[in-house]
């Protein structure tokens, strides 16, 4: 009890003596744990809204899509570009007959308990104002369907000349009820918006299957700019042309929805074995649709998870710099504690208590912030109804976050604390300044460079481990920033169709996530740079004072500390470039990664070094303006 009280008192006093340091540390660990919490609670968060949507729309268990006369899909090898082959009326009619036969087989297959369709499907280019996108327009009856009756979010169901747009698609086209849009030039009035569980909303509609002759490529429309709309059957038929004949869709309800994949395997295999059946449908299970719906959140998780680890590493670096710097200040306390009988274990605990308490407080704050912020980024999007509900902050997640926070504190402070506790009592009471290291090569080299660089190189040579730590922290930050750049480069290159004016909802959310993450990383890195500079200033206090007594100006000393930090940062910046690209490639699940343009990287590298210099200059110039006489006299005392 007495020991606990003693440790408590010492910790409380330390916290009171250095509230700013404590606050910054709290901020660093809180930021890391909040991002980690967000990443962890996002898993599986879309399941609930999809199920709600499925219930509200009588969602199908299997969706069968039939293309027009061209059997291969739009991305299949050897398929002619859409709209370039004209089919005879006979070929189109023959295909329609074959589709009806296959559909009948499916409707009467074992395990099928209900269906809706066949519905005719026309592929077209939709235009709303100057915005262009591809659309799959499903020809529907005006009466409600037994399976897959889209739930209206606004307006009313299809009518002649009226179109109902899937809600995400309407948002991307930025149209509202009453607006006019054209499909292949034919005008429609938007009479409603709706959601469905039978199709994945934009921008992932083509993710699992997309077997219509769709107008991608021309006019910059990408497969991510494909949306769903409902019009009347007559309207769909009117959109069909000899070069863009109709496809069809059939929705099936099974007696055992859980076995939908088995159904698809059985019939998919059966149709594939019969080459005479040119109307083989593409079968998609509700589970597939649900999983692709989850991509929205999965992308965010893919961003947040590595981001959380990067932020945690930075927090470790910040704490390590601070702990290392403060241990040398506390060495006299070690001597006093040991002189009055404290064991090395108790001394270690006393030295670590403050950081552990701060880590616990930060973990609690991080969990709360992550929990509160999660709903902001887990909204299911416009493509589903319902809310995801509160993200599940389970005991294992809370345990993991607290564990990571404590591990961060332990990793950064345990070794300096043990080293301090092992110091002999007499030496500790004498409170010696930790002897600097000597790197003869760097000192020799420094003789040949201007004074600020001379100081900088010698400061690096004095504390090479701190320089390494600093380089590692910059490398981590740069890794994060370059990963963000790689994301944008890849997104710009692959995902955005130039000039179509369509907002990609997933990209927009990913960009928001990355912006938040970048701000967190830069803030952590900024704190780290200031701490490192301050630790360097404190450590080099006497050396700088002597140098000033010998004629170095405060500006030269400041420039020296800045040079030391920038010199340490250079390898970190260089290492961060390939690491960032590699991190993005890993987070991007091995998909094609576009390396950001060289000028982006060069600009970022110089910007980072400039930021390091600017952040370092503040504590460095404060340190360099301390009165020399006072420092030299205190070192003498």
């Amino acid at each position, binding site marked *: 009890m007495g020991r606990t009280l003693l440790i408590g008192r010492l910790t409380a006093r330390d916290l009171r003596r250095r509230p700013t340091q404590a606050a910054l540390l709290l901020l660093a660990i809180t930021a890391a744990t909040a991002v980690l919490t967000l990443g962890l609670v996002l898993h599986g968060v879309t399941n609930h809204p999809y199920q709600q949507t499925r219930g509200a729309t009588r969602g199908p268990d299997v969706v069968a899509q039939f293309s027009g006369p061209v059997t291969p899909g739009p991305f299949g090898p050897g398929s002619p570009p859409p709209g370039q082959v004209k089919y005879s009326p006979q070929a189109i009619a023959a295909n329609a007959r074959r589709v009806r036969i296959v559909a009948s087989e499916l409707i009467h297959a074992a395990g099928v308990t209900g269906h809706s369709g066949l519905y005719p499907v026309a592929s077209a280019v939709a235009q709303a104002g100057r915005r262009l996108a591809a659309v799959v327009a499903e020809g529907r009856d005006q009466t409600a369907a037994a399976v897959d009756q889209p739930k209206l979010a606004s307006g009313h169901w299809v009518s002649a000349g009226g179109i109902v747009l899937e809600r995400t698609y309407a948002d991307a086209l930025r149209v509202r009820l009453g607006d006019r849009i054209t499909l292949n030039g034919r005008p429609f009035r938007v009479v409603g918006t709706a959601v469905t569980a039978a199709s994945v909303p934009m921008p992932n509609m083509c993710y699992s299957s997309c077997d219509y002759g769709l107008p991608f490529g021309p006019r910059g429309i990408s497969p991510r700019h494909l949306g769903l709309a409902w019009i009347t059957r007559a309207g769909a038929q009117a959109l069909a042309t000899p070069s863009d004949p109709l496809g069809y869709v059939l929705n099936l309800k099974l007696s055992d929805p859980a076995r939908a994949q088995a159904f698809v395997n059985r019939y998919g295999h059966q149709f594939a074995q019969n080459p005479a059946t040119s109307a083989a449908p593409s079968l998609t299970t509700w589970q597939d649709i649900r999983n692709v719906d989850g991509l929205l959140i999965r992308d965010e998780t893919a961003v947040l998870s590595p981001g959380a680890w990067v932020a945690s590493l930075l927090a470790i670096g910040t704490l390590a710099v601070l702990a290392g710097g403060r241990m040398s200040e506390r060495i006299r306390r070690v001597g006093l504690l040991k002189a009055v009988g404290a064991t090395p274990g108790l001394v270690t605990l006393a030295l670590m208590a403050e950081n552990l308490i701060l880590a616990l407080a930060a973990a609690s704050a991080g969990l709360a912030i992550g929990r509160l912020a999660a709903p902001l980024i887990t909204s299911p999007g416009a493509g589903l109804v319902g809310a995801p509900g509160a993200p599940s902050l389970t005991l294992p997640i809370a345990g993991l976050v607290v564990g990571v926070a404590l591990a961060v504190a332990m990793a950064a402070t345990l070794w300096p604390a043990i080293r301090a506790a092992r110091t002999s009592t007499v030496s500790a009471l004498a409170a010696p300044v930790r002897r600097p290291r000597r790197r003869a090569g760097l000192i020799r080299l420094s003789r040949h460079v201007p004074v600020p660089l001379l100081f900088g190189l010698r400061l690096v040579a004095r504390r090479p481990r701190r320089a390494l730590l600093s380089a590692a922290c910059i490398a981590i930050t740069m890794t994060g920033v370059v990963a963000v750049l790689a994301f944008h480069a890849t997104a710009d290159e692959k995902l955005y169709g130039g000039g179509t004016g369509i907002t990609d909802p997933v990209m927009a959310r990913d960009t928001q996530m990355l912006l938040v993450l970048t701000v967190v990383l830069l803030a952590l890195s900024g704190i780290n740079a200031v701490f490192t500079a301050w630790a360097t200033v404190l450590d080099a206090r006497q050396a700088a004072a002597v140098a000033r007594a010998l004629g170095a100006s*405060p500006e030269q000393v400041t420039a020296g500390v800045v040079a030391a930090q920038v010199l340490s940062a250079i390898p970190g910046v260089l290492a961060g470039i390939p690491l960032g690209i590699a991190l993005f490639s890993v987070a991007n699940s091995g998909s094609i990664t576009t390396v950001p343009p060289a000028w982006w990287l060069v600009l970022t590298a110089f910007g980072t070094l400039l930021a390091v210099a600017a952040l370092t200059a503040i504590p460095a110039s404060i340190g360099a303006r301390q009165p*020399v*006489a006072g420092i030299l006299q205190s070192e003498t005392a």
Partner: protein
Amino acid sequence: MNEDGGAPVLRAQGLRKQFGSSDTLVRAVDDVSLAVAEGETLAVMGPSGCGKSTLLHLLGGLDRPSGGELYLAGQRIDQLSERGLARLRRRAVGFVFQAFHLMDELTAVENVELPALLAGAAPRAARRRAAGLLEQVGLADRAGFLPSALSGGQRQRVAVARALANDPLVILADEPAGNLDSEATLDVLRLFDTLHTAGQTLVVVTHDSRIAATADRLITMRDGAFVDETRLTGGSGGSLGALAGLEG
């Protein structure tokens, strides 16, 4: 003008340094005036806390006075900017501290050449000069040693060599033998005697009467003010050790 009639290298007029205010006001240096002639060795004595070191810091531009005027080689220096003071220390002042203040990670020769490098000397010239100075203080064979491998007296001799690196107008020594044993103190005294003989201007702050006895002039301080001034002959008497009472 000093008593000898020549222009003083260092001159202070009504120099004051105060810390704190009202009830806690401390007059560390209180209305001090002095002039140090070229080649003169001035000793400043007094009990601990009387303001000797503060005066030395003011004279060398390490600290700023609260009032009064200070001239070095005829140039007023108490109003110089930090940068100006730095330049002044670089070219005109050499410091020797009680705690040596050598850089632990630098060898003896690297410590000695540091002021020259700060002053922009070519590395080779700075090294040549440093080696020469180490030879002059009898440490040529210790040039590559780190301070931790040197004795107290040797460290102080390295510090003196460093103070001489830029050929300063004046050397300011603050308790140069404060941390040394008798033998090392004698080494330092001999060194100062050599410098004195060579015409180097020296201001030595000490509370050791044996060191003070080697000066041309002795000023005694108490509570921040000069209370006594004595002209001595010890510094030019030749038998330094005997005068200082350190040789048997």
